[in-house]
């Protein structure tokens, strides 16, 4: 779901108005990336079967006491209703709206059909969520004898004609600019940011327009006196690093100059696999937490091997007794699907980030940056001896035959003091993938 950033008036020239001559459109040479986002997707799908509701505020939401708004059409948004807002609050803002329960099967079906439509134009489709995707069309232009903006217009027309819903398209040379552009195009529009104007397009925007800048980073930048993308672009890198840390500082410097190294990634919709566990009693023994990390790492690794995936970024999530939650990540030298390696990285992160006295309420392990494990593999010294991976694969086979508890690391066998009493409620919050972020 796109973040709506209104298009400043002086840059309305980036917008492609309906029914205009493509010759008058902004220059889309080198703009190989399209970001396509369905407009108020769930609500739009509901309106197909309830055309009489068109023009009225329509809100899709569950019916439970603590339900949140899943989707609101544009008439409802005028009243300030937003996705993820509690229904109670939406009802106060917009009591006369029509509230509909979600029909998830219909959304999934249309999502599949729309994604299939994208694939008619290019194989390079990165589905970000049920209603949103990046397309890299740069390789398809010659074959289709067209330009990126024309593909965008064609897709918009096809989505409307075939499915009776609208979408907005951002066309730009890099991903995060395309995503900003589609947000500004909403609803039912297209914005093209020419390669030569990316920087001038970005400069007046607030820092939150930069990929990766949430509230916390925005506050850190504000404290350093940086309010707009232009401020970030003009700031010395050293100052940025001081404000937000070394890695993020360089990242923001690049983005502010319109450079985004991410490519449109095709393939596995699973971008990460993870598992987490809530302790029955807040746990202040770091060794117990380390053992729990091993159990979670085993589980995540087995899930990755079952799906034929490897990943190179390991992150841990920690929630402390006071409910503050942190996540910390570390990138490995090479992708892995081996529990030993995931655990080594995860426990390193734990030891670096948990003051000895702090009680941990919840711990999670996640592996990100997943790729098909059939890709080339950097071999290691001594690989021709016993490899942990072989041991773990053998354990996978044994567990497949004899059940989950057939093979476990020794440190997970014996009950260790108070912490090992685990009630059924203490079971991890999900199997690997249950909490996977990739959709």
């Amino acid at each position, binding site marked *: 779901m796109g973040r709506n950033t209104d298009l400043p008036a002086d840059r309305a020239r980036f917008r492609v108005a309906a029914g205009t001559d493509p010759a008058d459109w902004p220059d889309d040479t080198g703009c190989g990336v399209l970001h396509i986002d369905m407009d108020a997707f769930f609500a739009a799908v509901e309106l197909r079967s309830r055309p009489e509701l068109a023009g009225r505020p329509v809100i899709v939401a569950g019916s439970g006491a603590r339900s949140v708004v899943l989707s609101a059409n544009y008439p409802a948004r005028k009243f300030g209703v937003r996705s993820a807002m509690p229904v109670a609050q939406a009802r106060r803002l917009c009591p006369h709206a029509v509230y509909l329960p979600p029909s998830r099967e219909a959304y999934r079906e249309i999502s599949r059909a729309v994604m299939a439509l994208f694939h008619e134009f290019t194989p390079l489709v990165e589905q970000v969520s049920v209603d949103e995707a990046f397309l890299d069309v740069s390789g398809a232009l010659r074959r289709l004898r067209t330009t990126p903006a024309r593909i965008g217009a064609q897709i918009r027309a096809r989505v409307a004609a075939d499915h009776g819903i609208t979408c907005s398209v951002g066309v730009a040379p890099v991903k995060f600019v395309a995503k900003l552009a589609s947000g500004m195009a909403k609803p039912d529009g297209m914005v093209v940011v020419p390669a030569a104007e990316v920087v001038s397009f970005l400069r007046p925007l607030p820092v939150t327009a930069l990929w990766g800048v949430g509230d916390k980073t925005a506050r850190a930048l504000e404290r350093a006196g940086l309010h707009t993308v232009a401020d970030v672009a003009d700031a010395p890198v050293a100052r940025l690093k001081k404000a937000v840390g070394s890695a993020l500082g360089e990242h923001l410097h690049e983005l502010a100059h319109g450079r985004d190294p991410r490519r449109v990634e095709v393939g596995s919709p699973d971008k990460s696999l993870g598992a987490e566990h809530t302790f029955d009693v807040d746990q202040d023994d770091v060794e117990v937490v380390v053992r729990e990390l091993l159990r979670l790492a085993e589980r995540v690794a087995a899930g990755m091997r079952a799906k034929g995936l490897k990943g190179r970024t390991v992150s841990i999530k920690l929630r402390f007794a006071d409910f503050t939650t942190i996540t910390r990540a570390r990138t490995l030298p090479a992708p892995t699907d081996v529990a030993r390696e995931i655990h080594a990285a995860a426990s390193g992160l734990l030891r670096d980030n948990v003051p000895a006295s702090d009680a941990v309420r919840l711990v999670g392990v996640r592996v990100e940056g997943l790729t098909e494990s059939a890709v080339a*593999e950097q*071999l290691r010294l001594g690989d021709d001896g016993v490899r942990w991976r072989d041991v773990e694969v053998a354990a996978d086979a044994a567990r497949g035959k004899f059940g989950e508890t057939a093979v476990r690391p020794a440190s997970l066998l014996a009950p260790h003091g108070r912490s090992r009493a685990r009630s059924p409620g203490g079971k991890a919050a999900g199997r690997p993938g249950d909490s996977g972020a990739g959709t």
Partner: protein
Amino acid sequence: MKIRVERDNLADAVAWVAKSLPTRPSVPVLGGVLLDAGGDDGDGALTVSGFDYEVSATVSVSATIAEGGKVLVSGRLLADITKALPDQPVDITVDGARVGITCGNARFSLPTMPVEDYPQLPAQPQFVGELDGHAFGEAVAQVAVASGKDDTLPMLTGIRLEISGETLTMVATDRFRLALKEFTWKPADGVTGAAVLVPAKNLADAARSLGAAGSTVRLGLSSGEGMLGLSGPDRHTTTRLLDAEFPPYRKLLPSQYTSRAVLDVPAVTEAIRRVSLVAERGTQVRLEFTEGSLRLAAGGDDEGSAEEELPVTYEGEPVVIAFNPNYLLDGLTALPTDQAELTFTTPNRPALIKPLDDEGKVAAGYLYLLMPVRLPG
């Protein structure tokens, strides 16, 4: 304290010490540089020191000392200031809690930090031997390329130093490659053998700056306190040792090969740099060897591809072997010669790179082992 020192001597000393200071000191005093002018005995030496419990660095600078004493000031700030001073004698005076630095018409007044909170500088460990500084600097750089950066595996972030009589061996590995350097040195009387693991970054920094001075480097070792010391004529540095087991690497070194190529190092490194432009981070460059020729190729249909063919001397069956281009370049650029030998058995087993001398013979003393990338299918 009231002293006068030469500007260049002071700037060099402070710059060198400040380089070893932590960027984010855990307590402020550890970001300080200690200036110690000793007692009040006229012509003497000023010592400039830094210490963060892991690394210490000390330089002596000749100085005219009117009044002795000690003062602790921010290392970073002092380094910036001394670097920028005009070329005239520098007067340093302490007045209460401030230190004044005067040079020509420029005058600085800096706050000081409490000397009594500063840790005791470690004593130089016991002398175990000496070697040529330039050769040492080069050797450490050749080995450090293969050390690991991942501090979850501390044993791989070090350089193992093995003393065996007159042979000094240094070796490092991050499991993907291994670099080994062996050379002769002058052990101290009674020193026969020892093996320690030194943080690679600390050793590389120290060896680089001591090697640049060009004179003899003296090595000290205190296994009990877990410390290595290196000294040049007027500077000393110590670093804590890593308390970890280094992998048993000798048995991993291949003793035979079935394929051997002789590479022209500058030509091959340039070609690798070119073709690997299309290889994304972490992907491989393929080396296709046939008689008399090496074809380098990288990339694929999606990301773009590149290839380049070079004449080489090759003995063995035609074969395709793939490597991470950065690891391969690290090994080739660490070589002291322009000709190298690449030997291996199969595409999934370790390959060895060794320097060749002018006559095409293996120049003993250095080897770089590299694990290939296994291609799918």
